[in-house]
């Protein structure tokens, strides 16, 4: 009895020894900084010292009552939604294409789709800024074709941010959809064909519904990554297309108004979390729908 107990405490000691490093680093350099930042968001701004020692909810009120700032919230959500929808539309065929390919070609295509993930995001966005600038490839091509007379403003617009974001997040969606495509039992598809359904009908009434979970999982990921992304909007949108993360950066790092930057940051976390919760509610409902069908 004694020995058993001692053995148990020893095992427990071992557990906590294994967990000690991660707990130290997460408590001191993750939870505490975020907690202090949360407190800062309820402080007033003081031009000389940055944070004044007075409590206020003014930072949140100011943001939520100003149409300018609410416009930025709407733009952030709109860009993330557009990115998600476009990513779904263009990754589905690609995921389908790859999962249909075989052997070597499949490996190369997977590599081709995933390799952008390994190349610095800053460099990829920089490439897009070269492509989309006023004398960039896109404008030059359109002008030489005679479709436009003067260059279109493509860079530093919502369009350029969405293009960059789709490019950056596309691999995540492909992976997610490919995962659910490959889980489909081939006999289900054969059964549908034997019962006389054509390829189109088989796709819409068998394949598509079975891959809905993959689409949803991918879109939750893409949406939450794009709503909080900073690099792409900073390079391809700049101050002209401010989104919430850029605004938080600008307030905290450029204008040194930490309390306001902090409040914007926590509102961003709030918006991202709310949308993810809403998304998963829809997900649960639609999965039930699929089950009933």
């Amino acid at each position, binding site marked *: 009895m004694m020995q058993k107990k001692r053995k148990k405490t020893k095992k427990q000691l071992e557990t906590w020894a*294994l*967990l000690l490093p991660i707990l130290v680093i997460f408590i001191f*350099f993750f939870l*505490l*900084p*975020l907690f202090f930042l949360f407190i*800062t968001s309820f402080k007033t701004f003081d031009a000389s010292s940055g944070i004044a020692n007075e409590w206020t909810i003014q930072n949140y009120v100011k943001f939520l009552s100003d149409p300018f700032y609410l416009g930025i919230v709407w733009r952030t959500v709109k860009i993330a939604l557009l990115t998600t929808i476009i990513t779904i539309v263009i990754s589905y065929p690609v995921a389908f294409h790859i999962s249909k390919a075989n052997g070597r070609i499949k490996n190369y295509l997977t590599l081709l789709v995933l390799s952008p993930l390994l190349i610095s995001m800053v460099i990829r966005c920089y490439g897009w800024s*070269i492509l989309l600038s006023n004398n960039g490839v896109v404008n030059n091509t359109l002008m030489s074709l005679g479709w436009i007379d003067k260059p279109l403003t493509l860079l530093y617009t919502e369009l350029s941010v969405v293009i960059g974001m789709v490019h950056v997040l596309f691999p995540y969606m492909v992976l997610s959809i490919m995962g659910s495509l490959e889980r489909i039992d081939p006999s289900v598809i054969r059964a549908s064909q034997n019962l006389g359904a054509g390829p189109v009908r088989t796709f819409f009434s068998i394949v598509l519904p079975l891959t809905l979970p993959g689409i949803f999982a991918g879109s939750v990921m893409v949406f939450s990554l794009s709503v909080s992304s900073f690099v792409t909007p*900073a390079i391809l949108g700049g101050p002209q297309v401010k989104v919430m993360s850029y605004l938080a950066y600008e307030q*905290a790092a450029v204008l040194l108004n930490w309390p306001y930057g902090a409040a914007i940051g926590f509102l961003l976390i709030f918006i991202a979390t709310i949308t993810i919760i809403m998304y998963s509610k829809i997900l649960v409902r639609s999965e039930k729908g699929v089950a009933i069908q």
Partner: protein
Amino acid sequence: MKKRLPKIGFHFFCTIIYVFLLAPIVVVLMSSLTATDYIVFPPKGLTLRWYVELVNHPEFMQSFMLSVFVALGTSLISTAIGTLTSIAIVRHQFKGKTAIVQLVGSPLLIPSVVFGVALLQFYSWIGLAASPAALIIGHIILTIPFVMRLVVASLVGFDRSIEQAAMNLGAGKFRVFFQITLPIIKSGVIAGAIFSFITSFDDLTVALFIVSTDVVTLPVRIFTYMQYQYDPIITSVSSIMILLTIVLMIIIERVLGVGKVFASKNQ
């Protein structure tokens, strides 16, 4: 014939998307060869002058070395801590396990900008100046969730009877870990190390808040240079980075097989 047409359309669509994926990378590589003083695509003339020009910009080399150092440090520590935690989570029963799993995964839910501001404020309060260590700590938090996911996946399907056999034959705990456990979960651990290296090396958002004038990582250097200068030197720096990544990929492919690395990430 009737069946062919949609098929051709489908392949055409996919090809366009593959081109779209590679476009910005190819554009950067090709623009670096321009002879002009400004960035232009397609490049005018063909020269390596913007690579030679790098000699006059030692700051890029310094930043590159710093980024490599930070990424290596992050990768080592993050993989070590992540592996220990994964073992505790998969093999031990303890109170508050779900809480710890959620805590460790939560950096994925917090926008990097917010984490960057929080760290900046915290560092300035405790008086930790911009340094490789300050960067590494921030990057460990960012990369731990990836390492955990990969290592936990490789631990879950683990046949523990081999360990038991080793122990029965008299091997100590540490010996069992290094000679049995580690070699078996190797691919998960290596994949975790590679992904944390890449994440750290690529990070702009968190580093942007931590860097100072003399501690600047490469992505931050490129980002700030890009906002004030328009000469093609950035394209040559970026091209070198892209080529290095490709070489690294080929080495990884030879050693591990790319399929394996990505497959384990996908789990």
